[in-house]
């Protein structure tokens, strides 16, 4: 297990990157603590797989440095870094048995056969495939194959980290849940450093202690699921996390008051914001009732556990979440719960101030 320091890493797939847009990874500077469970969350093309491949050594960064437990590994090969990686599509060695698949990484490293046998049996127990040991790997289901991919990492007890690159994409929904909880369990029992790449917020929020949200080649926020939800540092995090995403609308700020069209909204503080100022509020903090700002309802989606109300406020789309039993009043109005209001200047969050 290891602490992983990513020091000012930039990466471009072009031979001579000039401007920022040439970089797939603009600049990442972050420490993955030993034994932590991290998720890299972001839309396709935001650079999360690039970052993962840089950590595993499949890619060498154009700039920057990588430390494992303080030791510089920037120029070490994948094999020397001793990490495990699980890919989007299950990688198994078709012609081998399940047992031989798991033994493969050990045999490649010249581990004595007695130790191989002991480790493989342990790992088979861990991933729940003990009764399949002698079967050919090609006949297995997708989730079993993915477990073998994972097992090939777990079998080396000294791996520095286990990296996952959207590992559940091809797995059936009900197996996703099972595999995810097994992963959590493995993490709790053995304390591996795990980094999990996904574009699925549910996967990220349920798997990780710390979620790293990436956008356009950079990290926009690192935090616990609750922090990402309550205090998105960037409007992108607001949109991307939560369902529906955060309502963001341009406002003018004057002291403790925000002006949205003809409406005035009282703020809990007086933020110092300049540039393009926006107000963000999650649908969960928008209160629908008989007082406040008048809205016109466009539709109500009943999701079973709660309802999502889509409405227009000052000509802008706004979403509100209301309880399953609540009804929409005849002349609907909304209020913003002050606890849920965030102010953004040029897309970045500013502190509310006193």
């Amino acid at each position, binding site marked *: 297990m290891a602490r992983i320091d990513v020091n000012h890493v930039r990466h471009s797939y072009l031979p001579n990157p000039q401007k920022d847009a040439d970089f797939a990874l603009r600049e990442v500077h972050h420490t993955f603590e030993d034994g932590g469970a991290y998720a890299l969350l972001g839309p396709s093309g935001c650079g999360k797989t690039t970052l993962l491949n840089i950590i*595993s050594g*499949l890619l060498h960064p154009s700039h920057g440095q990588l430390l494992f437990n303080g030791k510089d590994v920037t120029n070490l090969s*994948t*094999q020397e870094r001793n990490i495990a*990686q699980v890919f989007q599509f299950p*990688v198994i060695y078709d*012609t*081998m048995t399940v047992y031989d698949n798991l033994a493969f*990484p050990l045999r*490649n490293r010249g581990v004595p056969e007695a130790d191989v046998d002991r480790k493989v049996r342990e790992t088979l127990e861990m991933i729940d495939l003990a009764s399949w040991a002698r079967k050919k790997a090609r006949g297995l289901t997708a989730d079993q194959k993915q477990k073998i991919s994972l097992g090939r990492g777990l079998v080396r007890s000294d791996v520095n980290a286990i990296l996952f690159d959207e590992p559940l994409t091809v797995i059936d929904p009900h197996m996703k849940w099972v595999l995810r909880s097994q992963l959590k369990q493995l993490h709790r029992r053995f304390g591996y450093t795990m980094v999990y790449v996904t574009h699925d917020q549910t996967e990220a929020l349920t798997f990780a202690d710390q979620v790293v949200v990436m956008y356009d080649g950079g990290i926009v926020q690192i935090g616990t699921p609750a922090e990402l939800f309550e205090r998105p540092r960037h409007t992108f995090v607001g949109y991307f996390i939560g369902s529906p995403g955060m309502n963001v609308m341009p406002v003018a700020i004057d002291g403790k008051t925000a002006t949205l069209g003809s409406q005035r909204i009282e703020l809990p503080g007086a933020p110092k914001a300049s540039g393009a100022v926006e107000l963000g509020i999650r649908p969960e903090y928008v209160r629908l009732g008989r007082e406040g700002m008048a809205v016109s309802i466009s539709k109500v989606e009943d999701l079973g556990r709660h309802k999502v109300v889509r409405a227009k406020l000052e000509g802008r789309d706004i979403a509100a979440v209301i309880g399953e039993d609540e009804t929409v009043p005849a002349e609907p109005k909304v209020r913003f719960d002050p606890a849920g209001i965030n102010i953004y200047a040029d897309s970045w969050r500013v502190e509310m101030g006193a």
Partner: protein
Amino acid sequence: MDKTWNNKAWFLVLPVLVLVAFTAVIPLMTVVNYSVQDTFGNNVFTWAGTEWFEELLSSSRFWEAMVRNLIFSFIILAIEVPLGIFIALNMPKKGWGVPVCLVLMSLPLLIPWNVVGTIWQVFGRNDIGLLGYYLNAIGIDYNYVQDPFDAWVTIIVMDVWHWTSLVVLLCYAGLVSIPDAFYQAAKIDGASRWAVFRYIQLPKMQRVLLIAVLLRFMDSFMIYTEPFVVTGGGPGNSTTFLSIDLVKTALGQFDLGPAAAMSLVYFLIILLLSWVFYTVMTNYDAER
């Protein structure tokens, strides 16, 4: 809706049946017809029964041609398959090199067979051929017209030049279908170059290799044009393969009966060997 049960749909396959009858079945039956009769021309035929078959199977000329042919096919496969795999492994997987390599590889396959024969016939000549002239110039006694060994070497090199590309292209198709993740996983598992070949590339190429071996075996077992153009079956009978022998009998000597019997035996051998190959390799596949 009620379903109507009748056999009218069979009329839909009638056109193809007629076509196959004219192109394959009727000519084959003509050969069967010839093989049991004797003729001295003038369209007069007499019944010969199994005489030609008995004569053929006891003739040393037939068996010698057969052994020659088997040795030839074996050598061809032993060179072209490993060489083809080796070249395919070393071809670029992306960039401008891909189309260049593919075109270069396809070139020999695009040349008509008699032209391939002519190219090598001239290429190997001692007086005007680049290869023959310079081999002799540097002191190697090379003469495919007189020396059976040289004739064999020429024909084998020619076939390798002509057909290795086919194996290369088939293997290459198998190789490029392997996702990058397999190579990345192999790196992470610390696999050696050999292990990557043995456990990732070879299994993925297995199906196309089966096709390559089958095609190359059948083609080389039926080879006619190229050796006919280069050596005409000589010197002596040293490069007389079954098909050359067959044409000599049928057209050279106009022995229609024996030639027809030989065709049938030849046909059955190829059918049998192909079936054996196919069964062995697909069974092997199923077992794994």
